[in-house]
Every structure is written in structure tokens, then in C-alpha cells.
């Protein structure tokens, strides 16, 4: 965008001839700097446009997250590692046994009864979640621009992470299990588990609720605060549409809240990020108490790697091993970086 209009070949040609016509002889000494120009402080991002600023921040935060698979060449479980804290979430996909997957179809078909009611929401939420949170709290690019950017960055970080987690935890979509689901939007090419919309919506709800009330996500879920009601509705709409199982939604909520809390720590430089885990499988429904129960944090020390795991128990053991090895590698890298650092750095 130029000062007056959008880029075009005509404008470009016009600016070329204008420059030739007005600049004079540039070999003449005495270049005239713009008297009003300022140089940004290294700590300031105000000189950037909003979209560029979000890009910079997002790319700065993204490397702090790592998605570690349960095995180098296998699907099954994924651990989310967050640099300032360590492991913050573990998801294990449900069994791929077709009979067990069919047990979950009942709920998908039941929710399909709500399609006519939810059709507009489902369509709008294909690309836009922020507007729905923006309907709960006043925010736009004039009021609370920082909040809009925080939520957008959170959503962007989520989308990078969730795709890795989906790849590691691949499960079929409802349409693959029962063709009678007849989804009302195109079924995406990536994994059903976990629901990306749930990850993003619950991460945004976690950040928004903290921003507005200072409360934890558990407090927000217990009081069924508005951001979490919106997140739940967005997530359930994907079941209504016929592209997710209920367990995908609960898994997405767990992962999303973990990412949301990590983002809060980045935003306010404080706060714990408890370790959470969720093992996919049949769930009765998607209600606030089910999501809350799935949120019960466990500390890595308390975490029993064997608890609740079935045929993939040994894979989680490898995850633990990988985590230890990764930590050793990170420690080595840190030591080498310090040793190579120039004096005074």
C-alpha cells in the first residue's frame, strides 16, 4: 500500500518517471535526511504494522514450543514441550479399532440434529474465531489493539502446534467411520484428533479470561465464564458439522488450555503452566464438567507413565526417554553457546 493507493504497474511506472523528474543530480554532495525520521528502540514494536508485529512476535514465540512424538516413526502420542517450563501437555490418541471408533459415531449423529440451528456459525467459524470472542469483550484495532493481537498470536501459535500434534496422533474422521454422517463442510485432510478449532478456541478463551478477570482456566471453567462458553460452542459446532468426534474436542480443549497458559506466562512473565494429559477414547458428551475433569493438571513428578495407557504404554516410556535426551541435548547446546559467546556478551 502506498500513501495514496494500492500498488499497481501504472503507479510503479509513474513513480519511476517522477523520481527521474524530481530527484536532481544525486551525485551532488549533501543528501538531505528526512528531518522527522525516528529510529525505534530495540524494545519497541510500535514502528511495525499490526500484522507485521504479530508475525515477529509469533515467530519469536514459536521456537519455544516443541512437539515431541512418542516415537520417531510412529503415530500415537505427542508431548508438548515449552522451553521456560518443560513438558506441559501430553495427548494420546484413541484406539484405532474401528468398532471402538463406531461407538463415538452415535454422539456425532445425535449432534447432527442441531445443524440447521448452527449452520451459520459453522460456516463463519471455518476461518474466523476471533469475531466470536470479540462479541464478548469490546476489542478492535482501536480499542484494546493489544488484546486483539494477543489472541491472534495465540491462535497462530496454536495452528502450528496443533498440526504437528494431529500428525503424531492421526485418527480417522467421522466420515471415514460412518458415511451416514454426511458432514456439512468439507472434511479436512488432516487428523481428526485433536480438534484444531478446540485447541485454538480454548487457548484464546484462556488468554482472554485471564486478561479480563485474572483467573485461571479452571476457575473460568468452574464458573462457566463467557469465553469458555464461546470456546465450547465453537468446538461443539465442529461435531455438529460432522467433522469431529467428541473426544477430539476434549483433547483440543486440554491442549488449547495448556498453550493458553504458556502464552499467559509469555505475556505476563509469571504463572505456572501445569502439566496436563488426555488419553483419547469414548466420552459421554462435551460439557463443562467433562472438560474441567479433563483439565485436572498433573505434575510430571506425579505422572504415572503407565496409568490409563493401553497398548501404547511403552511408547510413552520412549517419550520420557526422548525428553531426557532432549534435555541433555539442550543443556549441551546451551553450554556450547556460552563458551563460544564473545567476551562481554
Amino acid at each position, binding site marked *: 500500500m502506498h500513501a495514496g493507493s494500492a500498488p499497481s504497474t501504472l503507479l510503479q511506472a509513474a513513480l519511476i518517471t517522477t523520481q527521474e523528474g524530481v530527484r536532481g543530480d544525486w551525485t551532488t554532495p549533501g543528501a538531505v535526511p528526512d528531518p522527522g525520521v525516528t529510529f525505534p528502540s530495540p524494545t519497541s514494536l510500535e514502528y511495525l504494522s499490526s500484522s507485521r508485529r504479530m508475525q515477529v512476535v509469533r515467530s519469536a514465540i514459536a521456537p519455544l514450543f516443541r512437539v515431541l512424538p512418542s516415537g520417531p516413526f510412529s503415530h500415537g502420542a505427542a508431548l508438548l514441550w515449552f522451553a521456560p517450563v518443560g513438558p506441559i501437555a501430553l495427548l494420546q490418541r484413541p484406539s484405532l479399532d474401528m468398532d471402538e471408533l463406531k461407538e463415538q459415531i452415535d*454422539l456425532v449423529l*445425535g*449432534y447432527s440434529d442441531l*445443524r440447521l440451528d448452527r449452520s451459520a456459525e459453522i460456516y463463519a467459524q471455518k476461518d474466523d474465531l476471533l469475531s466470536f470472542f470479540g462479541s464478548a469483550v469490546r476489542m478492535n484495532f482501536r480499542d484494546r489493539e493489544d488484546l486483539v493481537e494477543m489472541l491472534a498470536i495465540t491462535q497462530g501459535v496454536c495452528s502450528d502446534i496443533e498440526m504437528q500434534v494431529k500428525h503424531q496422533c492421526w485418527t480417522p474422521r467421522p466420515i471415514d467411520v460412518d458415511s451416514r454422517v454426511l458432514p456439512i463442510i468439507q472434511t479436512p485432510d488432516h487428523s481428526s484428533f485433536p480438534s484444531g478449532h478446540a485447541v485454538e478456541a480454548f487457548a484464546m478463551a484462556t488468554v482472554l479470561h485471564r486478561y479480563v478477570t485474572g483467573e485461571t482456566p479452571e476457575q473460568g471453567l468452574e464458573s*462457566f465464564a463467557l469465553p469458555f462458553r464461546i470456546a465450547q460452542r465453537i468446538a461443539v459446532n465442529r461435531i455438529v458439522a460432522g467433522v469431529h468426534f467428541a473426544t477430539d474436542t476434549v483433547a483440543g480443549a486440554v491442549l488449547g488450555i495448556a498453550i493458553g497458559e504458556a502464552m499467559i506466562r509469555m505475556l505476563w512473565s509469571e504463572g505456572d503452566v501445569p502439566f496436563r494429559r488426555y488419553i483419547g477414547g469414548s466420552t459421554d*458428551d462435551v*460439557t*463443562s464438567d467433562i472438560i474441567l475433569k479433563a483439565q485436572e493438571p498433573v505434575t510430571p513428578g506425579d505422572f504415572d507413565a503407565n496409568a490409563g495407557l493401553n497398548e501404547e504404554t511403552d511408547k510413552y516410556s520412549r517419550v520420557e526417554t526422548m525428553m531426557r535426551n532432549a534435555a541433555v541435548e539442550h543443556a549441551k547446546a546451551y553450554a556450547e553457546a556460552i563458551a563460544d559467546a564473545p567476551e562481554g556478551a
Partner: protein
Amino acid sequence: MVPKWTDWECPSDVGTTSPYVAWHNLKIQIRGDDETAFIETPLNKGAALQQATPVGETFTEVFQNEGAPMRTPAKNTAFWGNLSAMGPTADWAPQGTAPKVGADTVILGVIDRGAPLHHRRLNAGGTDANSRILAAWQQDADLKEDDCGSLVQPFLPCGREYYKCEIDDAITTARQNGAIDEHLFNTKLGLVKMEGPNAPRSLARRQSHGAAVLDVAAGGDLPDNVYVIVVNMPDRATIGASGTFLNYYASLAMWRIARIAEWIWDANVADWDGKHGHRTCFPVNVNLSFGKNAGPIAGQSFLQRSIRAIRSLPRWRNVPFEVALPVGNDNLEQGFAEIALGSGDPGKVGWRVPPADQTDNVLEIWTEPVRNGAQLAIEVAPPGAGASLVGSKPLTSDPAITSWRRLQVGDAPGPNNENVRGAMYARAFPVPSDPSLVRLQITVFLLPTLDNTSPDKITPPGLWEVSLGPFSEHALDVTLAVQTDQSTGPDGGTGLRSRLVHPGYDRHLPNGRRRDSYAYPFATPPVDQDNGGVVLRHGSMNASSSMEEIVAISAHRKMDGRPADYAATGFRNRSDVRRPAASLPSETGAAHYGVIAAGAAGGSAIPISGTSFACAMASRRIIVHMADLLKRDMAGGHLAGFTARDWLQIAAAREDPSPAPQLPQAKVGAGRMSFAVGDEARWRRL
């Protein structure tokens, strides 16, 4: 292959007295369905209809030979197994502590589907978690078991029931941390179940019929002596697309409301120090915003039998037990015809059956009184096939099915009737005033025109030709009514309606507007526009509301009083039970659709249209009036001999804004009442 009708057969193969139940069972055979997958049979074993109801019939006597499909997780098999053994005094009162209420209490019963329990507008006196709902029965909820697997409510025939203290506690618990998770609340109480086909799900949607009806009838500010008993009936798939089991579930609900009222009365009467005079129970008005299009217009339905039986119980003989139903919304749906038969040519009317219709099409034919033993010739010719009239077997005074015909492809029905595509059943009802006369009923059933699971088990769409008579004995009026035809799916896309067609019927006026039963020119009397002959708007009033035991409510537009064109019309020249008692608003204005009522979510509001909501307003008016009468005289002196019909007719005649020229009674009954006589403002207050 075009199906053909067989000749009339003996009834021994039918095994039931209700043609609807007979067809229900026959369809299971035709389609080879697993009858235990969703429903439980046997259904109807005894007399579904009786001309005269014995005085003092008990619940056991009424129901021991009746049945209906029930979702297996909701059905208390033990209850039904023991019903006969329990005898006429079988008690199905709740076990536990009854709510505390005063002697001046009046009870509004609301029988519907998807009625919520937690809306703040249902709080008594505006106090949070102080519901005015005394009891709520979810007929289709899964049975409740304790930790040891024993039924918590063995006294219920099906579903679950909650009482005021439980409802208050549930609301308090759900709200203790802040906002209520309505989906969680509803699923915990069994009001919503997302798993499984045909489960209760209305309250998970944006709007629910029951939420709107309950709000209009009992939401907002009401006198503090008005309490509510709610019954949520099962899903449409259980009731049947043709409303087959509506009367069954509605009757169960009526009995339940009466029994709960008795239980609460008995628990409280000792505290009243004789202030209740000679009354034996609380006055009750029941709102049932449902109905079936076709049926025994002169009464004789199972619902009527139940209401009569309740009213004849000693407890209720001197206490009002009133019932209000809407006239229905099918005035312009071409679902009703009247043919005058003579000795000349047969009477004919077309029956257009739509393609891609996934529900049965049903036509009920009734005659005016004829000689006991008379025969009526009838043919229902498929599209493109010629009609050859076949006379029924002699129909004698017997409410059981006396003969029936199959519609089949090929020469034989097949060992399990798998070649059958339709059926017609005939029976005769004695006329109480003259034992030598009967009224004949012939009910015609056709399979859908589209079936995705059994693609060959269909009937051809198109114009079926119905031929009746001639009838040589005397002039004979015969009515034909297309039965209720609803989709069993959530959004109504699978059930299309058939229509009766005749060249004399104009659907539209020359200016393109829909042609109502009457035109209402300014300052001159209304003009009858329903003069096409055979297919009529007059008489389209739903059959359920055409009985003396209930009051039928029609609807008009609040802004200018214009009768709603969709509101079904009563008969022209018949008794007052075959036309509306009064009319209340169902539309706000020409540019304002419907009336405002609660949506499914607490605090939400929706515009909604239809006679159901006019009926709910009437119920509110009735119960508020009863509450006022009782407050003025707790002994019930003012309520002695009270009937909702009489009061509505007086009130409507008084309130109608333009008594001259009088609007047709077939359309608005005694007149158009307002919702605004103190009540609308109170209703809006919360």
C-alpha cells in the same frame, strides 16, 4: 409395479382395534424391521375407543389394555407388567415429601415437548431457584437407577420425574459457581440426550416448542398461587409421524397431572385448618398445544376417554379439571373434504401424494350416522389405475376392526406381508342416542413414496383417486381428513404432506394472496370464501380439539384482530364443540411475525407463530382467572360449576373489539380475546 387392493378380508389377522396400531404392526412385518430395536410390543390389545366411558374408570382400567412404543431405556417394564395385578386402586403416587403449597393453589398443567425447567422466568415471585414447577415428568428420559441398579422411581411407567425441591436444588447447584451450563443441566436431568436416535433434543436447539409454550402460559409474573406441573412427551419418532401415539402419551400425562395434584393436596391438607371448604383437590387447567388432524370428530378418542374418566373420579367431580387445545394450523393445507353421497354417481376426490415423501400418508373417512349393518363402497385408486368400487363388508356396531384390505404388489401378500404397500381398515361406532345407528370409519394407509433403507417398500406418488358410494338408503355426509404428517427428523425435511384436490378449490385469491375461509371487508360482514364444494377449509379444525371435554383455541393478529389464515376453521353448522371456543393472538402485526416467547436457552427470546401459542395464552388467562376466583374465596365457592368453555365464551364476547359485524364463530369462536388484560404486562415483567 402398480399395487392393487385386495377384497375386504376378515379381521382375524389384525389382532387389534386401532387401525393405527394395526398398521404400525403391519409395517414392522412389511419392512422386516427388528421390532425390539426401538420399540416394544405388543401395543394395543384391547378397545382403543369406547362409545361410553364407565363412570369412575381408574387409571389401571383405562391403561391395562393399551400400549405404545417406548424407547427401551425409558420404559419401566416392571410397571406395565404389574399394572393389571395392581388392580383398580393401583397407586402410582410419588414416594417422598410433597411440595408445600397453600390451600388457594391452582395448577396449570403443561403437556408439551422440550419444556425447560431452569428458566428464571419460571421462578415463583421472581425469586431465584424457587421454581413454580411442582413436578416435571420427562416421559422419554432414561430410567433413573441407584448405585445398586434399582429403579429410583418404580412408580413411573416410563422416564423420570422431578419435584420442586429437586428442581430448586439442581438450579442452585448448577448456578453456584456462576453461569449455568445449560447443556450440562439439561443432560443431567434427562431433558436432553445427544446420544442415540430419537432421543429428546429440542432443548439443545435454538427454539423449542415446549419452551415457548411454557413461557407464554407460565413465564414471568404470575399470581403467587399459580403453580405448574410439566410433562415432556417423547420425540416425534416415538409418537409417530401421523401422531399415532399422541393420545396415549397425552392421556398418560393427564392422569399424571391429576395424580400429582392429588398427592400434593393430600400432603398439605392437614395444614390448612379447614380453609379449603368442601373442595377435594386443586383446580387444574391443562394446556396441550398438540393435536391430530384426523380422528373421531364426535369424540370417542382415547384422550377423551381419559379426560372423562378423570373427571368422573370422586375426587374430581366437583373440582375443575379443564383442558385447552389449539385448533391447529392446517386451514390452508387442503387436508379436509366433505362429500354428500346419494344414490347417483359415486363421490370423488383426488388425493395427491407427493414424491420423495419419507413418511406414511394416511386418510381417515367418517360417515354421519347410518343403519347398523350398512355397507359403503370405496376405492382408492393408485395414479394411472382405474377405480373399481368395492363395497365394504356389512359394518355393524363394533368399535373393533371388522374388515380390512391390503394394497399389494403381485398376486399374494407374501408370508410376512412383504408384498403389502398399504392397508385400509373399517369399523363402526354405535350412536349413543340410537342403538340402531352407527358411524363408519375407514382409515387408509399408504407407505412412503421414498424409503432409503427399503427402496422397494414404497407407493407411487401422484394423484390417487378416492371414490365413495353411491349410498342409496339416504343422503349421507362423509368427511375425509388427511392425518397429521410430520417429519420424524429434526428439521421437517423428510415428511411431506399429501393433499386433497378438487377442481372447485382455489388456493389463492385473484390478487395472489392466500385464500382464507373468509374475507373481511371493511365495515361489512365477513364473506364466506370457502365455497368450492368438496375440499374445504371449514372442518379442518384438528380432531383432537373437537370434543366437548376440551376448549379449542383459535388465533388472530394482535395489531388489527384479523384471524390468522392458517388457523383451522370449525364446521359451519355444527355444535359448538366443533368450532373454536375463542381466539387469542398468534401474530403481532402484519410486519411482525408471530409472538415473542422464550427460546430454548434461558433468557433468550424468539418470535414464534401458530395456534399453539394462542392456546398457551388462553391457558394463562384461564389459570389466572381461576387463581383470582380462589383467592377471593378459598373454599372454592366461585369455582363451583366453573368451566373454561363457559368463561372463555363470556370473556371473549365481552373483549372482542368489534362485536358488529360479528366475525364467524367457525373462525374465532365467541370472539377475539386479548392477552393484554393485565397479563401481558405481567408476563413481560421478568
